[in-house]
């Protein structure tokens, strides 16, 4: 039964790993640099595994989610700054995901974009209001598995597998180093986006993890994120094989769907659109929850989906406010794909504020007892924190210097 539960969790994690940031950055990176940035995906997936395992362990042992730890470890002032940064980047990400939902619905139905934004937001609100937590995770995770159609598409496009293998060897061979670095930063940010750890650790607390569940936590983090990362790799291969060859710079989700249509026809297109729809809808729900979790944990409100909506009124008000704010921003007509690029880059800036408290708490024996970080977890955690710092410092200058990756 436990193996079955782990398997379900892993399946959901595969389908739920990819969000609009991963889709946009992986396909665009492939279209611009072929397979040369595949190694960055591996680095990013390694980072999210290390820190998700760590925050899941903290949740299981201490029953504290990320923003409980932030408040306790860095104090109210610095914690408030972290909270504001986290909420702004989460809101930006949520806005981009809702825009993505509306675009997918439009490509499937042909109806007007703005109406579909409203339809999408109402549908998401209803799902969040009435659906139990574990079913939300599973429905959208399994629906997101439709994205595996891109694996078939990549196979049918006949990439040079030798070149693909070379892409996993770290190198920077390009005429446009700054744009290359911008995409590398974007890919790392998309893989290690902060809302994922907010959601993951809060979910662990919600599901009542105890130290007995540390094995499940480790399996979910390592296997789920690794397999989910394969989807990112597949998207980059499609970008590098189809769009680079045809001189196309992908600037919309429709272009990504074209990556399945060209090799697989109508069926490929429809499955891809459904997969993207589920992936971005699931990510939208994750970000809504992440925003509400953060603020509730920081201010010590009742929170959690295992309570009724009335049982945690300020938590409920927080996710409704997040959803309405994102809806209002999308309705201004902002381009969700461009917004995604900004959301990912600004998330990168917030990464150290999110990951440092996790690292500190996971090392604190007063909290963690015998489950505190061992030498391997610390080497990986500190190593990745150095990477995060470098990436966070360089993100905005690269954004400006490359004109958002345009060169």
């Amino acid at each position: 039964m436990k193996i079955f539960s782990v398997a379900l969790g892993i399946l959901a994690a595969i389908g739920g790993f990819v969000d609009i940031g991963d889709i946009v950055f992986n396909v665009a990176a492939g279209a611009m640099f072929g397979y040369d940035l595949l190694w960055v995906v591996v680095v990013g997936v390694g980072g999210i595994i290390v820190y998700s395992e760590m925050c899941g362990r903290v949740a299981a042992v201490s029953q504290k989610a990320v923003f409980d730890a932030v408040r306790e470890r860095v104090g109210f002032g610095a914690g408030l700054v972290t909270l504001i940064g986290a909420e702004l980047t989460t809101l930006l990400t949520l806005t981009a995901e809702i825009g993505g939902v509306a675009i997918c619905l439009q490509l499937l139905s042909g109806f007007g974009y703005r109406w579909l934004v409203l339809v999408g937001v109402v549908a998401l609100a209803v799902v969040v209001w009435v659906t139990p937590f574990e079913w939300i995770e599973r429905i959208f995770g399994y629906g997101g598995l439709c994205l595996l159609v891109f694996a078939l598409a990549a196979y049918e496009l006949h990439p040079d597998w030798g070149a693909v293998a070379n892409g996993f060897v770290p190198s920077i061979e390009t005429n446009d180093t700054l744009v290359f670095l911008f995409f590398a930063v974007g890919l790392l940010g998309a893989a290690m986006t902060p809302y994922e750890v907010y959601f993951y650790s809060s979910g662990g607390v919600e599901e009542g993890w105890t130290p007995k569940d540390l094995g499940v936590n480790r399996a979910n983090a390592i296997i789920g994120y690794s397999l989910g990362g394969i989807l990112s790799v597949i998207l980059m291969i499609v970008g590098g094989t189809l769009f680079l060859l045809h001189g196309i710079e992908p600037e919309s989700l429709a272009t990504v769907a074209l990556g399945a249509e060209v090799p697989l026809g109508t069926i490929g297109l429809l499955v891809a659109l459904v997969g993207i729809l589920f992936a971005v809808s699931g990510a939208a729900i994750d970000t809504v929850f992440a925003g509400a979790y953060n603020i509730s944990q920081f201010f010590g409100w009742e929170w959690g989906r295992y309570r009724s909506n009335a049982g945690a009124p300020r938590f409920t008000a927080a996710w409704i406010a997040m959803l309405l704010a994102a809806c209002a921003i999308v309705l201004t007509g902002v381009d969700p794909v461009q917004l995604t690029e900004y959301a990912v880059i600004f998330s990168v800036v917030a990464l150290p504020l999110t990951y440092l408290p996790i690292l500190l708490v996971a090392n604190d024996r007063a909290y963690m007892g015998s489950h505190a970080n061992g030498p391997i977890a610390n080497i990986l955690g500190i190593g990745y924190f150095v990477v995060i710092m470098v990436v966070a410092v360089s993100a905005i200058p690269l954004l400006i210097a490359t004109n958002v990756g345009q060169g």
Partner: protein
Amino acid sequence: MLSVVRRVRVGPAAVRARHERLASYRTALGRLIVVAAFLALAGCNGGTVDRHALTKDGEAIDSLACEGRLLAHDIAAGRSTSRFAEVHSGTLRQRASNFEDALSERPTVAVIERDVRALARKAARLASLLEQLHRQPDDRASARRIELGLGEAGDCP
């Protein structure tokens, strides 16, 4: 001991030093604002199309043509849905129109003006072809003709 240090620091020399330090901060801040404004203007390029912008816009317009050609090819082969074809060709057409408007109107340096206006005409032609695709997303014969037109208009590999 601490009070002595404080007294020394608030003497006339210390006040003068503080004013000088503040003045130097203000100068540095002023320079920073000028540099930031310069960078912002450089980034926006003051609305003028230079060679770099011309090259980048040219690449983006070719990308639209190539993507439109791929879409038209799939429509001609019956491998797309009419909804997807209609919506996506409409999006591509809108982008081509935006380029047409911008390149027709934006000021440019004299030596490349002819190239800029030629690129505007190319964008207009693309927009027209994509508009046809948008209006007839089910018409496979038209899609075949439009595919050829987009291939000729854009510099597709």
